[in-house]
């Protein structure tokens, strides 16, 4: 492959690829995201190849990045019909090949069924997808992440070509400013303004950095983008570098994402081969190189200044940002850091034009945002919605509501340092400002749904424990304050808390938020503060009534056997590891509360639902 010497060559090549792929061949898009991999997509792939060879059927198999519907993994989509098969097992493959690939039938038992039991074969009709608006993750299901041609065939790199041939850096910045794009890493700072400051900053060299140190528990948007469509992220970085006037870029990927490193380094190699990276890109004067740097596993390195310190080879600790990194960042030179999703949004803006882009979202929040929807929800998965969509739409329309028909209790947005929002806030539009006002935050896009069986005290303690371990320990309030907050929550969990403790807790929370150096500390009290605002009664239940409404805090619960329901089958006595359950066969059993470890195994094992937790 020769390097593209001009934008025209790229366009010509795009045309060639499109003609090639417009053939009559069916495409089997097999989701190779982490969820699907874990559920056996590799075996399915082997089986699929085997079966097609056996029957001598020609079809195009693409193992793509995460397609989003992780709850139903592994996923297979047959195109051009867009038939979606869920929870496919290797033994289903012969049937799928025979009916759907060789023929044009649909295997009914493998398609999605709605709550009424009606089959919905077409991917785009499935409510999970229907309620979404995919902009940034649009191309992922059609692309083999290791193949640059797949991306180019879908119009990839034409945004870069457009920018390099017809726009000045200032025009690019002005477009991004007009688009109203805000940092998807959680800060929500206007991207265009950031680029502009970095362009204006004085410095011999300037750096473009992609923050892929996604550390929020349960969040995997950046991972999915890098593993599913690395070229789109790279294209965004290229456009940003051109606008800022930088020729050196870094991507900081956390160590736990080896596949992202693999796909991205492959993308760098392929882009280099095509002349889309390196010297004189597309025959212009613009040159750009990207180096991959792997993080060592510190959550705090997702903070921009800590990330830069880590990139420099120092300990990843944040510093005060009174002097901005766009002026003095990496190696004290102007540096522009954006999150993976922000970079990936940029080519989409250039492709569709600012006018179209700004139609999405609300007044101050334009475009879409990806979320990882997890917790006690029916449809766990990776989603993308326009900013301003309500939490209710996310939880019920896309997420399908609470699993096991339990009652909704709270939704945690923004990862460990986000806030817990109650049912009353479900109509809150999901955007940077509204979430902030409600005491939570956008964060990088983690959404954890909790049901009636969760305890907010326990959840808050869990997040504080995470943050305590991940605090770098540099500044006093974060290092000590989080620990003391946690100690108070532990006391409350044990039923030893007092009402004064709640006051102290709130006091510490405000000081930690007020006086910490970086975002980690400043936002660490969010779970505590928001739960104190919306779920204070639950705290009081722990303190005054010595009860845990969620039935989680072991010190405050006990397991009992209901005499009228127990049939004396003895299953519970068998599963009890503490030998706390006694009783003769066919007679009512009893739990010895002194021996009971409150593990809940008996409750889950009881066939007659005779065991209750109070």
């Amino acid at each position: 492959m020769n390097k593209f010497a001009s934008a025209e060559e790229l366009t010509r090549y795009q045309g060639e690829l499109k003609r090639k792929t417009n053939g009559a061949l069916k495409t089997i898009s097999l989701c190779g995201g982490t969820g699907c991999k874990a559920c056996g997509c590799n075996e399915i792939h082997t089986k699929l190849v085997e079966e097609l060879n056996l029957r001598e059927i020609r079809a195009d198999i693409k193992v793509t990045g995460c397609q989003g519907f992780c709850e139903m993994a592994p996923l297979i989509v047959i195109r051009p019909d867009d038939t979606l098969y869920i929870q496919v097992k290797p033994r289903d493959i012969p049937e799928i090949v025979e009916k759907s690939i060789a023929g044009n039938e649909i295997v009914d038992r493998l398609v999605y069924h709605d709550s009424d039991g009606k089959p919905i074969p077409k991917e785009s009709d499935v409510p999970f997808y229907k309620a979404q608006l995919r902009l940034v993750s649009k191309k992922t299901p059609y692309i083999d992440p290791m193949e640059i041609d797949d991306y180019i065939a879908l119009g990839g790199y034409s945004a870069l070509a457009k920018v390099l041939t017809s726009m000045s850096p200032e025009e690019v910045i002005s477009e991004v400013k007009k688009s109203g794009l805000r940092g998807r890493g959680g800060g929500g700072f206007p991207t265009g303004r950031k680029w502009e400051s970095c362009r204006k900053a004085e410095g011999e060299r300037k750096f473009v950095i992609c923050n892929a140190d996604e550390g929020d528990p349960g969040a995997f948007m950046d991972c999915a983008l890098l593993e599913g469509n690395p070229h789109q992220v790279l294209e965004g970085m290229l456009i940003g570098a051109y606008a800022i006037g930088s020729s050196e870029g870094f991507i900081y990927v956390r160590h736990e994402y080896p596949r992202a490193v693999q796909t991205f380094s492959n993308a760098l190699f392929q882009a280099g081969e095509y002349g889309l990276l390196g010297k004189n890109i597309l025959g212009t004067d613009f040159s750009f190189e990207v180096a991959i740097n792997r993080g060592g596993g510190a959550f705090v390195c997702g903070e921009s200044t800590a990330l830069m310190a880590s990139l420099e080879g120092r300990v990843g600790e944040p510093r005060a940002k009174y002097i901005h990194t766009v002026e003095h960042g990496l190696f004290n030179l102007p540096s522009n850091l954006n999150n993976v999703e922000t970079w990936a949004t940029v080519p989409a803006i250039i492709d569709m034009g600012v006018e179209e882009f700004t139609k999405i979202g609300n007044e101050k929040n334009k475009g879409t945002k990806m979320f990882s929807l997890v917790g006690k929800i029916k449809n766990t998965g990776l989603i993308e919605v326009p900013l301003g969509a309500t939490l209710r739409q996310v939880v019920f329309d896309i997420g399908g509501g609470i699993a096991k028909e339990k009652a909704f209790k709270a939704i945690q947005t923004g990862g460990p340092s986000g806030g817990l929002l109650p049912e009353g806030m479900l109509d809150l539009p999901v955007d940077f400002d509204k979430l902030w006002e409600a005491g939570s935050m956008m964060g990088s896009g983690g959404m954890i749904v909790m049901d009636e069986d969760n305890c907010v005290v326990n959840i808050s303690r869990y997040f504080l424990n995470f943050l305590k371990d991940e605090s770098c320990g540099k500044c006093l309030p974060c290092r000590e304050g989080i620990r003391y907050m946690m100690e108070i929550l532990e006391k409350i969990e044990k039923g030893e808390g007092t009402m004064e403790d709640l006051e102290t807790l709130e006091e510490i929370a405000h000081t930690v938020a007020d006086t910490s150096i970086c975002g980690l500390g400043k936002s660490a009290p969010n779970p505590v503060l928001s739960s104190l605002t919306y779920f204070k009664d639950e705290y009081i239940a722990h303190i005054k009534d010595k009860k845990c409404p969620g039935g989680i805090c072991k010190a405050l619960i006990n397991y009992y056997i209901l005499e009228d329901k127990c049939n004396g089958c003895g299953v519970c006595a068998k599963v009890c590891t503490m030998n706390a359950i006694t009783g003769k066969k066919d007679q009512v059993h009893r739990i010895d509360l002194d021996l009971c470890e409150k593990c809940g195994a008996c409750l889950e094992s009881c066939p007659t639902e005779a065991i209750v937790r109070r």
Partner: protein
Amino acid sequence: MNEKTEIIAEPDVKMVTFTIDGKEVTAPDRTFLIKVAREHNIEIPTLCYNEHLEPYGVCRMCIVEVTRNGRRRIVTACNYPVTEGIVVETRNERIINNRKLLLEMMMARHSEVEVIRNLAKEYGVDTIRFKEQPSEECILCGLCVRVCNDLVGAHALCFAQRGPERYVTTPYDVESDTCIGCGACYHVCPTNHIKMEQMDGLSVVYGDVSLGPDKPIHIDFMQAVPATPWIDQKSCIHFQTDGCGICSEVCPTDAIHYDMKDEIVEVEAGNIIVTSGFKGFDPSPMYQFGYGRLPQVMTSIEFEKLSNAGGSTGGKLLTPDGRTPEAVAIVHCIGSRDKNYNEYCSRICCMQSLKFSHLIREKTGAEVYQCYIDMRCFGKGYEEFYSRVLSEDVHFIRGKVSEVTDFSPDGLPEGKVLIKVEDTLLGIVREIPVDMVILSVGIEPQVGAQDLKQKLRISVSPDSFFLERHPKLAPVATATEGVFIAGCAQGPKDIPDTVAQANAAAAAVLQAIAQGEVMLEPITAEVMEEQCTGCETCLSVCPYEAITKDEEKGIAVINDALCKGCGTCVAACPSGAIKQWGFDREQIIAEIDAVLADIAV
């Protein structure tokens, strides 16, 4: 920590005006807020700030509330750059409450640390609502780590772990061989968590000559002329790591240049006064006194340093374990008047010992024991001083000390040593426990005096001090014309005698300069060119180095100005090529004839 810092404005930096606590102030744009506040005597507490280091902003004590463009927020004064029109409040309710809670958190972990206790007291933090832990000395301010890495450049300290487990350590928790023992970490530590320990060749402690760590920059001694400090390259951080450089930063006259080197300067001079001074006798070989073995034993010169207000203890007389001594022994004639070492009397030791007695009595009130052979207090006012010290309740014991020991069969109090001395006046042997023993060491010729003797062609007397030409008629001149001696180079003497002799030597030199010309010896030797074979025998015998060889002609040449007419070369020349004016064969025979003529008559 609260030293005032002067802000020097760069000429092209714009000035901004803003408000601190309602007071309008002006400062260079983007100066760190804490500097401006200190300049205006506005107290902002801090535990991790040091003006020579990049601000770190971790103790959060220096939080203030800043309103900028209508937005209020809490920032740290140590690293917040001031801009036009900001409004700063350093002590409003929100700030005070936050500081209080931060101090409460600190007190839960560092309740015994003085700086924290004082601050907590100042802010009225008396109850701790958190689980108190055993008090830790290290408050994790990071000053030591930063000074070692950013300033010293030794990289011997770092943080390990994170969150509440964070602690200061050496890299990989192993003993660090990159530590240069500069003590910078020890100096900046606000809680005395870091201690200096003796390390071989790194930090010098009490017992060795310098009595405590010397700073790399020092003036040799208080009375040194000129009183210009110099940098000891061996202990200076900059010369070891290329870091630091604080001294050049703070020097207002820009007088510090690290590239300056020692140099040898050649000066053409017609006269030389040798004032090479003396060296103190080293008592290490006198094993019985325990010098170098017992930390309580020191020489008179070391005591002088200890007692000096500019010394390591600030002039306080302290024992090695830091106590004020209760009893001190002064042992006279160490290395003087001793057939085994130096037979001569060093002349100054008696008066010096009396001075020490007086100082010790005055400063500490300790019992002083003077163990002397006999007191030699000649000189103006000296006898009177002796009488005065006698009246100051100093114990005078006539007798030589036989031993200083830290062993006694009856046991000794902690930190004391025993001196054994025969009191010849009472006729008994005494054993006295003391806290400090001062060996009044004698005076010896300076190291290198032997070299100087060779170079200058001057002689020494049997005691190895330089020999004057004549003890009464030419007490400052030497056998070599133009070379003079003064002070202890000539022999042991005290300051008044040294000054008098130095004046005399200066006068002798001035006399020669005033004359403007040098009188040469009339009788010198001369080489007869045609007879000289160039064998160089004369070169080696000439005591004045007056003969050189003319390599071109291959013959010896005598410098008339250097030749003293001693005749050695004349006698030594194997070919009879050197003659001495006035002493050639005919002249000597004529002289003999003249003498014999009378007899013949």
